[in-house]
């Protein structure tokens, strides 16, 4: 919203002639002006009156201009600060700007110079406020969008699957093989869409910073849990899942649940692309700085030209060997989680021979 009142400008300067001169030329241009002869008073006025712009003399008895700048830029983030200085050195200008000053006026200055600097500062202020409003708006929309997606988009899918269940319950015995297969395919595709939404939500939530706290953890336990969890799926697909783990691994800082999902995701991928009688191997090793987990398979592999894109959202390597379509977000999720752990994930592959994922974590010393 645009303000209707004229911009309010506060002048903090110990020299009366400067205060009066500034007041006259600014009021002539239609601004409202407040002034203070020293820092303490100036800060108090600023807090109460919330001016748009403050002109602050750098060199004053009592609280220095630099201190005032520091306090005001912290307390009133929307206030645009301009310093007035009689000894405009590069060093003091840089310091003032680092502390949050927008511009500076070297003494002596003309009314025109003053008005130009003030006009620019007012433009800067409205841009600053606009930017903040837009950012807040964007954050709010993102949040409500996530809620929208999670409830409004998932509910219909859940209901569709419930209807499929109902249909099977009331008429399942009258279905022939073909009709049954069609139902099953429908169910699979709807479920796939649900998974995609779920993965997408996971990633969005990570972006929001909703990441479960990191604790010291032993990756061996997480790896074992993931292999136990995935063993039935591997068995069902006729694959051998083997682990080759050391007795001990250095602790890392992490979130066990998220990492469990990273491992199961990668193992899950391997099961999709590895033909029957294939092998999925998980091993781990460590040095002084890192723990590296290696997950490899004897599957179709990833073509070299597609390898660079596999962590991109919605990218899928399509292949004949693929048993089931993925969400296209699984590896994106893995990469984000690894980044949040200060780690890395890399893939290498030889087409026709298999793929290897290396997950590298910094150790906790």
């Amino acid at each position, binding site marked *: 919203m645009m303000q209707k009142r004229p911009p309010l400008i506060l002048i903090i300067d110990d020299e009366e002639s400067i205060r009066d001169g500034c007041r006259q030329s600014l009021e002539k241009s239609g601004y409202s002006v407040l002034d203070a002869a020293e820092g303490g008073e100036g800060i108090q006025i600023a807090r109460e009156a919330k001016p748009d712009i403050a002109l602050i003399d750098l060199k004053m008895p009592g609280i220095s201009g630099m201190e005032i700048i520091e306090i005001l830029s912290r307390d009133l983030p929307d206030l645009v600060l301009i310093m007035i200085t009689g000894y405009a050195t590069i060093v003091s200008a840089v310091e003032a700007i680092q502390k949050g000053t927008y511009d500076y006026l070297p003494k002596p200055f003309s009314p025109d110079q003053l008005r130009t600097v003030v006009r620019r500062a007012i433009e800067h202020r409205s841009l600053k406020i606009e930017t903040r409003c837009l950012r807040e708006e964007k954050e709010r929309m993102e949040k409500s969008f996530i809620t929208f997606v999670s*409830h409004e988009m*998932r*509910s219909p899918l*859940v*209901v569709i*699957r*419930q*209807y499929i*269940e*109902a*249909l*099977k*319950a*009331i008429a399942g015995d009258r279905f022939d093989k073909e009709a049954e297969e069609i139902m099953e395919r429908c169910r699979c595709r709807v479920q796939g869409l649900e998974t995609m939404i*779920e993965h997408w939500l*996971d990633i969005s*939530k990570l972006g929001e910073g*909703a990441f*479960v706290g990191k604790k010291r953890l032993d990756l061996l336990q997480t790896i074992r849990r993931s292999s136990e969890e995935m063993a039935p799926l591997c068995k069902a697909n006729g694959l051998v899942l083997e682990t080759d783990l050391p007795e001990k691994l250095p602790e890392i800082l992490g*979130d066990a*649940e*998220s990492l*469990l*999902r990273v491992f199961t995701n990668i193992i899950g991928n391997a099961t999709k692309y590895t033909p029957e009688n294939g092998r999925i191997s998980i091993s781990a090793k460590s040095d002084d700085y890192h723990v590296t987990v290696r997950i490899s398979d004897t599957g179709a592999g990833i073509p070299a030209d597609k390898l660079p894109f596999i962590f991109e959202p919605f990218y899928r390597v399509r292949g004949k060997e693929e048993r089931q379509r993925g969400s296209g977000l699984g590896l994106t999720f893995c990469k984000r989680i690894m980044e949040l752990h200060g780690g890395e994930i890399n893939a290498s592959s030889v087409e026709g021979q298999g793929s290897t994922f290396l997950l590298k974590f910094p150790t906790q010393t």
Partner: protein
Amino acid sequence: MTAKKKILLIDDDKDFLMATKLILEKGGYEVFLAEDGKTGVEMWKSVAPDLAMIDMMMETWGEGFAVLSKIRATDMGKDTPLFLLSAVDLQGPYNSFEPPPEFPKVNAVLQKPVKAEDLLRRIAQELDGKKMS
């Protein structure tokens, strides 16, 4: 011949009610539907069902819990099996729900969608061995 056992379903999604009703009727139950928590509690009192299923997330997060507490607090609600329904992935690390220790007893938390045979099996488990009405 014994009368059909009565099941009360409380969920704000009409279609979910409809689909689940079909399954439950196929299982031989008499089904009562309530589209919001308030109606649900009222029907609980008038119908006196043998089992009730309540959606966790209706109008507001937590409405399901409030309904469950109200039902448990009634005289006949003390021992009747109550199921909570959830569309949230309870396996996920971000959404896990654990009822507080003082929370009234929930006989089962079922994740939506519920497989027909699972649903009927869980209900039979709860209702088996109870006095026939």
